[in-house]
């Protein structure tokens, strides 16, 4: 039996292998197994349809947020078009299943690949543009894609949208939140696993080098344009895959939800969660989705509550206010996000009673 690893009170790493290890201790591995068990067995058996609906939404957005985190958090290329890429994936999946009759398991990755190609197309300006100029170029991409989704009626159905019906895997109809729960969370786990390992490779380190100083990275022999394009491609693949899941889950898609606000929400997720951290992207998604769900529950409650019903319509814009406020407060008071808070809490336990 090999030696068990426990938490140490300092940094005693002696090799790069130890530095790169995903699990510093055996506790992490155990907790992950327990977490997987809860996620895939306990929750789907006990959760209500409503809980599962919220979790499914979180799962879908988390996939896209993890992808965006690769682009913004690791490569340092700020993209404001992620919401549109999400939409491209949704439409690609819808067109593939309804027009071409492809099965779900083929359409999902194909939609991701298609979106990756589109994302690389809109990543081409990153060859010459940097910082704010690139940000605005991707914002332009967002508006151009939105326009295409609305205007190209022959394929996208215009403002009417597309109905997606036949969601089934090997003859099993995915007709409940519970069935989708397994599809979404298995995808999330696999894609998270891929991402966590991707950023530990030569490729991931090259991206971080580009983020920190792209000229220096180029000097060290990293072909920066190729790597930037690949980062755009992979992050768009995640967005497209999530979008395809969204299309199958929602059954009907219209261009409406894939607006600039969605792109902003994705960025808010990874900023609140913590840039450059895969778990942070998931934390951030949980925070944003729960926040908007709680806010809409409050509005709904007030709408049905007699005396407040008349003012409830005027209260609705306050949702946006609270949303903005939470982003602002997070950025001012904890710019490193929830992942940093989680790290501090953990190290407090580890270093107890001498924590500071």
């Amino acid at each position, binding site marked *: 039996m090999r030696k068990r690893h426990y938490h140490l009170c300092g940094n005693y790493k002696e090799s790069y292998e130890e530095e790169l290890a995903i699990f510093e201790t055996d506790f992490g591995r155990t907790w992950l197994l327990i977490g997987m068990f809860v996620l895939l067995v306990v929750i789907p058996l006990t959760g209500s349809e409503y809980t599962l609906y919220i979790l499914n939404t979180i799962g879908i957005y988390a996939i896209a947020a993890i992808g965006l985190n690769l682009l*913004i958090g690791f490569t340092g290329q*700020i993209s404001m078009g992620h919401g549109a890429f999400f939409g491209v994936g949704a439409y690609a999946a819808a067109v593939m299943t309804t027009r071409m009759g492809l099965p779900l398991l083929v359409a999902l990755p194909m939609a991701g690949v298609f979106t990756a190609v589109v994302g690389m197309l809109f990543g*081409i*300006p990153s060859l*010459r*543009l*940097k*910082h*704010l*100029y690139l*940000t*605005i*170029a991707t*914002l*332009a*991409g967002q*508006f*151009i894609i939105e*326009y295409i989704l*609305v*205007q190209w009626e022959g394929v996208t159905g215009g403002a009417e949208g597309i109905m997606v019906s036949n969601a089934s895997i090997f003859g099993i109809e995915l007709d409940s939140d519970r069935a989708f729960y397994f599809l979404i969370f298995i995808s999330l786990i696999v894609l998270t696993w891929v991402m966590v390992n991707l950023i530990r490779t030569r490729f991931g380190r090259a991206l971080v080098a580009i983020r920190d*100083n792209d*000229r*220096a990275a180029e*000097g060290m022999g990293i072909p920066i344009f190729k790597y930037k394009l690949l980062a755009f491609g992979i992050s768009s693949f995640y967005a497209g895959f999530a979008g395809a899941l969204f299309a199958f889950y929602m059954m009907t898609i219209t261009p409406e939800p894939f607006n*600039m606000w969605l792109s*902003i929400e994705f*960025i*808010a997720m990874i*900023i609140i969660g913590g*840039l450059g951290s895969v778990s942070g992207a998931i934390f951030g998604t949980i925070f944003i989705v729960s926040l908007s769900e709680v806010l809409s529950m409050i509005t709904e409650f007030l709408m049905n509550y007699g005396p407040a019903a008349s003012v409830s319509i*005027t*209260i609705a*814009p*306050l*949702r*946006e*206010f*609270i*949303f*903005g*406020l*939470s*982003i*602002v407060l997070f*950025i*001012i008071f904890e*710019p490193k996000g929830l992942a940093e808070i989680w790290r501090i809490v953990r190290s407090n336990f580890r270093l107890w009673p001498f924590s500071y």
Partner: protein
Amino acid sequence: MSFFLHLLVNGLSLGFLYALSALGFVMIYKSSSVLNFAHGELMAAGAFLFLVLTTWAELPIALAFILTLAGCFLLGFVIERLFLRPLIGEDLIQVIMLTVGMAAMFKGLLLFIFGGDIHQYPSFLPEALNLHLGIIQIPSVYVATFIIGILFLVMFGFFFKYSSQGIYMRSVADNQPAAMSLGVHVRRVFALSWAIAAMVAAMSGIVLGIINGINVHELSSIGLKVFPVVILGGLDSIGGAILAGVIIGLLETFTGGYISTSLREIIPYVVLVVILMVKPYGLFGLKEIERV
């Protein structure tokens, strides 16, 4: 021919409006390198303040105008103090998202107070400003806008050229550490640039309100239109912003008039991407020389 002239006049005045709203934006970027996503909401805030002062408080127009500008000057000051000051030295993305959050806050607040309807100012512009040039007619609003705009541009030109604060602002824009070591109060310059930018935004908000009616959604979407304008002109060039404003304005009206109205909204962005591929720092933007 008359259709062409009509479009030309409309495009020029629209472009001038864009240039005017881009002005405050460039000012913030020049001194503090902040990309302000809340610009449209600042314009809306100014427009609604003017609305309250004219219709609810029933002040005379000139007094209301001056009070609005003063109020927004203060607002810009407070915004810088509360939100931007803690972020000096943080990453670009944090600052961008902060202004996005601010935009959501202002929009929510304004919608909460005034609702999503279109409000109107009482008409106060003299009929004499209604120009007839041969076959084309220029509405008084555009003429007034043009006069006010030129007035402000000249005033800012003198401010930056001759006043000590203006020179400080230019020095900070040029080289922040050098300015700091020469004793320029950099934080005060940031605050002042936000205050002035909010003031200019209020002015363009009022003008847009006179033309289209005052509506929160409308004004905040025009705030987004500022992006193609400033990027096309080069983020840190005021002259470039004016020229790019006119280019985008003309492009929009001519596309809307001759090709299709739905393409009108998107054409600035398409042109933007194409031009950026050729000139990555816009038409007149300062090329950044990077050293490793």
